């Protein structure tokens, strides 16, 4: 609050000084007629400029008063620790369970708050199953998440989908713990 006070004082001071200084801006209208006897040539030395107020003391730029880091981060920074959480699936399935629907509802709220964000939903699979089949399954998982968001009112042109099949496992392990982490629809912010 003290900082805000200083800003206000400085602002008022500048406004006060500006109000007392120099000439008012020229009004729109025909050029003023020169006084009779005024020499046609411009004066040899221009008149001295009006005295300028002293520069205000430098004040460092403050972070936004609302303290919302997401509003100023780049998409790359947002994706490092995204508010849009992934949803997970059972083996060979693109069905959303209750937990997934809850996560998607939360994601929809984030997307309505940041209405300019465009996202890509990536479908991923675990290492079982053939790579060819998993490319198509990943697409179905991404689309399942997208369609649920659409049903919650998120606009379609804000959501892209892509499948990575089993080409990008999040967990390189070979057990159900790893597999369950890899069966996901993953959210990436593309642009804001």
């Amino acid at each position: 609050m003290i900082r805000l006070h200083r800003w206000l004082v400085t602002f008022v001071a500048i406004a006060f000084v500006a109000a007392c200084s120099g000439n008012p801006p020229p009004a729109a209208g025909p050029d003023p007629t020169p006084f009779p006897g005024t020499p046609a040539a411009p004066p040899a030395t221009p008149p001295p400029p009006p005295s300028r107020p002293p520069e205000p003391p430098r004040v460092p730029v403050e972070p936004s008063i609302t303290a919302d880091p997401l509003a100023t981060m780049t998409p790359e920074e947002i994706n490092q620790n995204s508010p849009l959480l992934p949803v997970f699936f059972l083996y060979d399935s693109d069905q959303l369970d209750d937990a997934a629907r809850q996560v998607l509802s939360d994601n929809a709220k984030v997307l309505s708050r940041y209405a300019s964000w465009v996202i890509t939903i990536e479908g991923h699979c675990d290492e079982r199953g053939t790579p060819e089949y998993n490319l198509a399954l990943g697409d179905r998982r991404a689309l399942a998440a997208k369609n649920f968001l659409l049903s919650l009112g998120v606009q379609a042109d804000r959501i892209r989908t892509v499948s990575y099949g089993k080409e990008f496992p999040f967990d390189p392990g070979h057990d159900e713990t790893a597999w369950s982490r890899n069966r996901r629809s993953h959210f990436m912010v593309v642009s804001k």
Partner: protein
Amino acid sequence: MTFRPTLIAGAVLGVLFAATPLPVPLSAVGPQDPPPPQRPTQLDLSMGGRGYQPRLGLPDFVVPSGDADLTAAARVVAEVLWADLDFEKEFYMIPRADSARIPPAATPLALPLQSWVQLGADFVLFGSVRRIGDRFEVDLRSIAARGRNPGSQEFGRQYQGCTIDNPRACAHYIADDFHKETRGLDGVAQTRLAFVSNRDGARLTGRPLNEPGNSKEIYISDYDGANQRRVTANQNLNIAPNWSPDARSLVYTSWESGFQDIYLIHPFGGGPRSRPAAGSDRMRNMLGAWSPDAQRIAFASNQGSERTDIWVVNRDGTGLRNLTPNTPNWMDNRPTWSPDGTKIAFTSDRSGTNQIYMMAADGTGVQRIISQQHSDAPTWSPLHYIAFTLGSGPGHDIAVFDLLKGEVRVLTDGAGSNGSPSVAPNGRHIAFTTTRWGREQIAIIDYPTGRNYRRITQAGTNTYPSWSPVPAR
């Protein structure tokens, strides 16, 4: 089968190896018919019914000039020729380690035939090498070691145009010619493999550091795994290469635009890269396959819909159409063309599990052809079988569906997980992805025996093999 006698004098078949990796033949002396189209059904594939397998010795080639560079190149030619002949199993090749102690002969007449007979040889391949300008010539003759007329020459041919810096290509050409002349066999020594590897491991452009995202690029190599080199460099995910019928172009799937799309490239020159299906984030395309007439590419696409369909497009980007348009709830995927280009096999889950179907190339006449617990990645061979991946995991096997008998037979032995088959153009070998040695690697086995596992790749993780046709001349 005995060799038919071939005299060298007066009938010289020259081969000019140009600066490009693929050899271009000179016209032979005398009238030359175009080679007959491959008629694989005439090949007797059953090794048991073939009869005797001739036993062949192959010593180092003779280099009369003693030139050190030429001697080194000639040694590579002999070694690679031995391996190429051993690959097809038409002959029993006497191991060179066993025959190394036999003193070399300067001429065919000087061959110590008794020493070769003691190793079991029926014939000895005698080669001699001489420079001609900046190239060299291989003079190759097959000399009977025993039988009715030991010392007689059964085969003789001169191969010109070999270069010191590419002795492997020289050997591959000779091997295919030798197989064709002596066994009527279309060899594959001059073919190539394409596959996917993450061995360079670059980070995907723009992907957060705490996300997975090491690149996978397209690589090519000789059929035996030599000369592996990368042909894409876009630091993204690239998969599923597929060779064109002339073996000079590849279609592959890439995410470099942020979504799957198919790309055409020409690694040996021949034009800029193109995207014939013009994908977008509404139309995502993948798993392209060239038609045998090289005019069209079939692929899987999910143009904004829930399930993938089989699409086709002309190579110049015209004629884009959906071959399975009335299947909104089914996933149709991974197309492969019949050798005559009139049919397409593909996978579909319309029955509830992933199975393999066939349809005409215009999308009509869909019928199911394979019914197993889970089938994927069909690859139509030139020999009336379709190789595919069998099983729902966690381990898969390579299986073949015999189109004449209507039977499925498992080819791999259950070690590791095996999938994504691609068949050699003579139908006798299948490349595939396997985890039998740990991480995914490219391997080759023989058809129909399922034997002779060969490991092609070492570094990184390697997947999605594609076996090229015989390169066009």
